[in-house]
């Protein structure tokens, strides 16, 4: 081993603590890069798997009437695997007017085909021989495994033309010259009987746009089929040039059709996809840049500090005749040794970290995606190599300047440690008021910071980066998701069911049945009568008048009458202290929901719409469907409230919700359609929803629509949570780098000043004023970083607002919470680091410290 290597290793060992600190810095940086790589590969794999499940795992499909011709085509070097399939034909199983899946489609697949198409067997097995078939449970319900099935398979045609198997159900309309419309639909022709043996039950995987449910048999080249055979090819190697070569080869093939699975291939980069790749690459590049900058700051700092500690030894080396190159290699060697250890560890940590994150996130993730693809840890070694490369570049960049400096240090300077004490009076000049306000301790603290300006600056920069990242990202997250969240948080119900019934009697029965479900916590059914009046005729509140004058409102005010069932209406009256005796038969008495939240011209308005004195108003009733005026009548607005019934939150300035019971407006509802809005609070929204669906599906003569607000909200919350896990994970890691940086800087700063501290104590500085001085240093670190961090954060918040307010109305709300949080965090952090490093020094023996070399 040559002497430089020996010297490097020895000095690393000697400064074990320091070496460890530097190594941890490198490990964190590398771990982040490897985490980014692993996350990228895991997500891309997820997307790719998703794509394969949806569309099959193939790259190109060729279809040709002649099987032998196809076989010859496939014999090419770029074909990795080829799997065969052929649609035998269709048989009608449902009424095309009733069902979106009128047919059963039998497709023959070879063994690889079953895997490529992601077909899953629930019971039994895959077909392994000619004449064996697998079907969905629904289609096979009349049979059991082992049964013989005869299917009469046909060709789909429309006006005598063959309809390709993958086309949707065909209908055409012809308009004759006399204006009559004739509709033609596709038909099945050339029926042939096929005999199959049922060997298994599969999961239904048929795509929504194909008008058929799938059944599969085993592929055999001797099969007679209605459709041309198809060969699905997987290409090799997965490069853009392969695709070009293939297209060239197949260019002039007659009668052959070729389909490229572009939605899959674009993820392999074989097809240019500007949007996806630039957006993704851009995002990754930004994150990688942030990580690199933070890492360089950290690693550079570590090395330059360890260098200044070793200046003396380097000087000694060169006084003994070490060349510049030798001195430089000392620093590079140190970097090399550290990297040998820290890079593999960092890579491992990154992968482990993402693996843990994914295990945590996967169940949440699954709750809002509907595919069977799983989000699992996937490591692409190419990306890990790239991460390693970037790490090496980062380390090299960080070491370059310290290495150069090492080679330039003059012998005398380093022996005398002159570099460290080269201070000019001007550079450490502090304003007079500092001593006035903060005392000698404060002044000393500030002078200390000014002396090591570079270190101070790099610490402040890393603190500032953390502050800005935290505030702006958390603001971005909250404003992005806040909108979505607020909307759901304002809803006061879990399930909404809309019923369109044929008779009032059956509606009553059904509503009673729904009301009596065990899952119901709170229940309200209502009908709506549309009515309107004119602002000119109404006693309106000043704010409404203002909006009306400014032209934001039309002439008429919408006055929908919400007619609530008796039970709910009574409890609503109780809630608002209303008088039940007023709402008698045909009284036309109503309550106005007289609070409006609305926005005009990007400004928010909240207030009363109407003057709060009971009055009678002439209204025009309109029919819910036709919109025609059905009646003119008078309504008595007898009371006002700002409490909304279930399903409503507030009125608008152009629409005031009126609430009443059935009795009061019975005569107004004669001609209305039987539409009921049912709002429920539920004990278990999911089971409840299933119960309602089952019940209403079995009922005749009713149309319905169900909206499960609670599960929508749950999904949104989970999506937000997943995003937050990733984003805050990233911030925490970046902050960790900053923290390391701060710890580095502060501890060495303190270490290097041990002698000075001892000196101050020997001339009679008390432990209290020593602590005070150190605390002031911490405060100055904190203040300076907040001084830069806050304005920059505010600027970014303004920018985010600017971008988000296009199309949205966003209240500009300064996130005081995060500012306070960050302030506390920064000060705690700096104080802890300072106290930790100083505590070690305070127990120093003054005499020993004074005798120290550095």
């Amino acid at each position, binding site marked *: 081993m040559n002497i430089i290597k020996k010297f490097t290793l020895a000095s690393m060992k000697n400064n074990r603590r320091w070496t460890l600190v530097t190594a941890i810095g490198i490990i964190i940086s590398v771990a982040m890069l490897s985490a980014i790589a692993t996350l990228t590969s895991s997500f891309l794999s997820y997307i790719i798997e998703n794509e394969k499940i949806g569309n099959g795992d193939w790259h190109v499909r060729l279809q040709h009437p002649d099987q032998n011709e196809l076989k010859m085509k496939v014999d090419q070097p770029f074909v990795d695997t080829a799997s065969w399939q052929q649609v035998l034909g269709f048989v009608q199983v449902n009424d095309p007017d009733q069902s979106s899946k009128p047919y059963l489609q039998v497709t023959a697949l070879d063994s690889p085909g079953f895997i490529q198409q992601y077909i899953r067997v629930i019971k039994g097995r895959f077909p392994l021989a000619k004449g064996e078939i697998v079907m969905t449970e629904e289609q096979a319900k009349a049979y059991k495994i082992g049964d013989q099935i005869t299917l009469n398979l046909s060709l789909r045609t429309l006006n005598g033309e063959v309809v390709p198997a993958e086309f949707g159900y065909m209908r055409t309309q012809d308009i004759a010259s006399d204006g009559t419309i004739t509709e033609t639909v596709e038909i099945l022709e050339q029926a042939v009987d096929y005999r199959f043996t049922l060997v298994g039950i599969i999961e239904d995987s048929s795509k929504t746009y194909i008008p058929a449910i799938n059944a599969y048999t085993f592929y055999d080249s001797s099969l007679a089929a209605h459709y041309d055979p198809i060969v699905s090819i997987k290409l090799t190697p997965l490069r853009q040039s392969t695709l070009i070569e293939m297209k060239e080869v197949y260019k002039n093939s007659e009668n052959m059709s070729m389909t490229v699975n572009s939605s899959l291939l674009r993820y392999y980069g074989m097809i240019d996809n500007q949007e996806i790749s630039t957006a993704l690459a851009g995002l990754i590049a930004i994150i990688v840049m942030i990580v690199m900058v933070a890492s360089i700051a950290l690693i550079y700092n570590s090395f330059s500090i360890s260098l200044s500690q070793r200046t003396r030894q380097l000087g000694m080396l060169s006084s003994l005749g070490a060349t510049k190159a030798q001195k430089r290699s000392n620093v590079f060697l140190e970097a090399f040794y550290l990297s040998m250890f820290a890079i593999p560890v960092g890579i491992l940590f990154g992968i482990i970290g993402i693996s843990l994150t994914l295990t945590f996130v996967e169940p949440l993730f699954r709750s809002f995606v509907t595919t069977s693809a799983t989000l699992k840890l996937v490591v692409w070694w190419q990306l890990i190599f790239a991460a390693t490369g970037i790490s090496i570049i980062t380390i090299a960049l960080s070491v370059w300047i310290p290495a150069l400096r090492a080679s330039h240090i003059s012998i005398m300077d380093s022996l005398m440690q002159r570099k460290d004490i080269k201070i000019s009076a001007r550079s*450490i000049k502090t304003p007079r008021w500092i001593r006035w306000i903060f005392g000698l301790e404060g002044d000393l603290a500030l002078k200390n910071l000014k002396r090591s300006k570079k270190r101070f600056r790099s610490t402040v920069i890393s603190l500032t980066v953390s502050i800005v990242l935290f505030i702006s990202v958390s603001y971005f997250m909250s404003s992005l998701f806040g909108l979505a969240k607020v909307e759901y948080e304002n809803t006061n119900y879990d399930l909404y069911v809309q019923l369109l019934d044929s008779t009032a009697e059956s509606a009553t029965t059904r509503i009673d049945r729904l009301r009596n479900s065990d899952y119901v916590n709170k229940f309200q059914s209502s009908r709506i009568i549309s009515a309107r009046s004119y602002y000119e005729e109404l006693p309106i509140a000043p704010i409404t008048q203002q909006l009306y004058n400014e032209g934001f409102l039309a002439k008429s005010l919408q006055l929908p009458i919400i007619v609530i069932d008796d039970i709910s209406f009574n409890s609503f009256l109780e809630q608002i202290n209303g008088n039940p005796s007023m709402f008698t038969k045909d009284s036309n008495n109503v309550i106005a929901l007289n609070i409006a939240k609305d926005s005009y011209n990007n400004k928010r308005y909240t207030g009363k719409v109407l003057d709060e004195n009971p009055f009678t108003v002439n209204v025009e009733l309109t029919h819910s469907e036709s919109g025609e005026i059905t009646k003119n009548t008078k309504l008595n607005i007898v009371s006002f409230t700002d409490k909304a019934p279930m399903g409503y939150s507030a009125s608008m300035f152009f629409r005031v919700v009126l609430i009443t019971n059935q009795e009061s407006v019975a005569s107004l509802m004669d001609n209305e359609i039987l539409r009921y809005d049912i709002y429920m609070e539920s004990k278990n929204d999911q089971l409840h929803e299933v119960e309602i669906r089952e019940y209403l599906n079995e009922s005749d003569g009713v149309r319905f629509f169900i909206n499960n607000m609670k599960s929508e909200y749950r999904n949104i919350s989970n999506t937000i949570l997943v995003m937050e896990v990733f984003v805050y994970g990233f911030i925490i890691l970046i902050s960790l780098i900053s923290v390391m940086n701060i710890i580095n800087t502060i501890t060495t700063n303190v270490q290097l000043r041990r002698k000075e501290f001892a*000196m101050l104590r020997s*001339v009679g500085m008390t432990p209290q004023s020593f602590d005070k001085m150190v605390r002031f240093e911490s405060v100055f670190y904190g203040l300076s970083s907040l001084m830069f961090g806050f304005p920059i954060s505010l600027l970014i918040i303004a920018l985010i607002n600017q971008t988000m307010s296009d199309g949205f109305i966003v209240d500009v709300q300064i996130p005081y919470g995060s500012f306070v949080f960050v302030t506390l965090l920064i000060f705690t952090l700096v104080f802890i680091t300072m106290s930790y490093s100083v505590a070690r020094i305070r127990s120093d023996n003054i005499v020993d410290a*004074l005798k120290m070399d550095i």
Partner: protein
Amino acid sequence: MEILRVENCSKIYGAKEAQVIALNDVSFSVKQGEFVAIVGPSGSGKSTLLHILGGVDRPTSGKVFVDQTDIYALNESKLAIFRRRHLGLIYQFYNLIPILDVQENIMLPALLDRQRPSQQHFDDLVATLAISNRLLHLPNQLSGGQQQRVSIARALINQPALVLADEPTGNLDRQNSSEIISLFRLLNRKYKQTVLIITHDATIAQNADRIISLEDGKIISDEVRKI
């Protein structure tokens, strides 16, 4: 008047076999205005003694009274305050604070005490030490001799009971050394300042009123001279 009394001071480093007895039951006292030189070969315990007298290192056993105060009965803060008011320490390597200018370095013990020393005393001191024209310089802009004079001024600014100097000329050339020693002598006479100097320079010792010789942690001679 007795300004310093050392009673049975011992200092032992390490334990058991590795034990080193740096000071072995040392007792002596010094009167106000005395100029004492402590001499002895290296390892004789003279620096240890000086540090114990200066209140920066604790004796393993024994007591030190400075101006009638048992300094090791004080807690750390009180001792620090006592140090800055009643003791002046001067080191071989000056130990000036590099970020403070000369004036601030000199005033440091006073500033730590939130006091302003009398301007007259300060002016007189810097004039005597010939550093009046260097007051706004930083320590690294001064020569070794000048730095040592600054540290002497710092030791004297609070008019301490006792000035302790640890090889004050050890880092200086002969010319500067003799200048510094003459200064000590001058200050001793002018301000009636009690001075204890550690040295192994015989010519310096010759300037002292009293020479205490140490060997293996024990006083082997205590010679009062008449000059």
